């Protein structure tokens, strides 16, 4: 299989992204971004405290410099967490750093319900504002939800 058909999806470990760039890997890179605001990202992805967005940005710039490969940002929108206009504007700014596209992913609730899928209005706002800024955006419908096979659901029932 061609490495062009392989995507490595990371939550964004800056040091390792730079190492991959140095290794001149041929596969594609996706980053689970979920927020372009440090406080918000740290609240859902605690390691962001150690590797803040500034470091991630710098690593991604390095990656693009070396590989000339655009990056895919995986992005889930949750109700009350990252569904405001401020969140969208931060994402737009982040998307200007390196060539990229955004995948908005439908959220699959895991048992306890602390996270809820954002309203369709919020998703539409994301799409509209990103597109207005010439950023490529796709919406990924969730697959395999009934068997807990969807993104972030693995091991839900084990």
């Amino acid at each position: 299989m061609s490495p062009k058909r392989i995507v490595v999806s990371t939550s964004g470990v800056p040091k390792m992204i730079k190492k991959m760039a140095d290794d001149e890997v041929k596969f594609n890179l996706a980053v689970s971004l979920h927020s372009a605001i440090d406080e918000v990202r740290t609240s859902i992805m605690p390691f962001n405290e150690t590797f803040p967005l500034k470091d991630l940005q710098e690593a991604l710039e390095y990656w693009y410099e070396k590989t000339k490969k655009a990056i895919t940002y995986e992005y889930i929108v949750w109700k009350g967490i990252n569904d405001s206009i401020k969140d969208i504007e931060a994402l737009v700014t982040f998307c200007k750093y390196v060539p990229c596209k955004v995948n908005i992913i439908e959220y699959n609730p895991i048992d306890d319900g602390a996270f809820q899928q954002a309203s369709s209005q919020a998703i539409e706002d994301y799409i509209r504002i990103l597109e207005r800024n010439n950023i490529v955006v796709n919406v990924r419908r969730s697959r395999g939800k009934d068997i807990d096979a969807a993104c972030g659901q693995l091991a839900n029932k084990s």
Partner: protein
Amino acid sequence: MEINKKDIRALTKEQLRDFFVKEGDEAFRGNQVYEWLWSKSAHAFEDMTNISKETRQMLEDNFVINHIKVDTMQRSSDGTVKNAVRLHDGLIVESVLIPTPTRTTACVSSQVGCSLDCSFCATSRLKRMRNLNPDEIYDQVVAIDNESRLYFNRPLSNIVFMGMGEPLMNYNNVIKAIDKITSP
């Protein structure tokens, strides 16, 4: 399970060649065995039909082939297939086959559990047990490829490392697995 035998797939091609030379055989025997292990996905030494019986027995005495086993397989109403894969030490990871009209994508795991702790993710609730070896990552891909051919009549077209675990926290093994997957 034999505890003192080595997992043969932990050896590089060079190490296999050296092994045969030390055994008084030809180095190219290492290439042949390597090909059985990695291109033909052999599950047993006795499948290696171009290797002499004595040599196969000798391999049997020294090594094991630690293959993963698909423990349970679930199919979703939308065609998605999920495998729970049992590793040689009994731990379990999951991989997923996602069919669309134009592609079939494998979503594979890189760790048992995850090094990180994203609060929205089910995997993060599990304790990270260990990194997967290159062959355990590779085998997930082979298993999904077989299912893709069986259920959708086409080989796997894409792979995403988006299952359980943070692939960059198991970088060396992920790279080794990708090398095997992409080598012609």
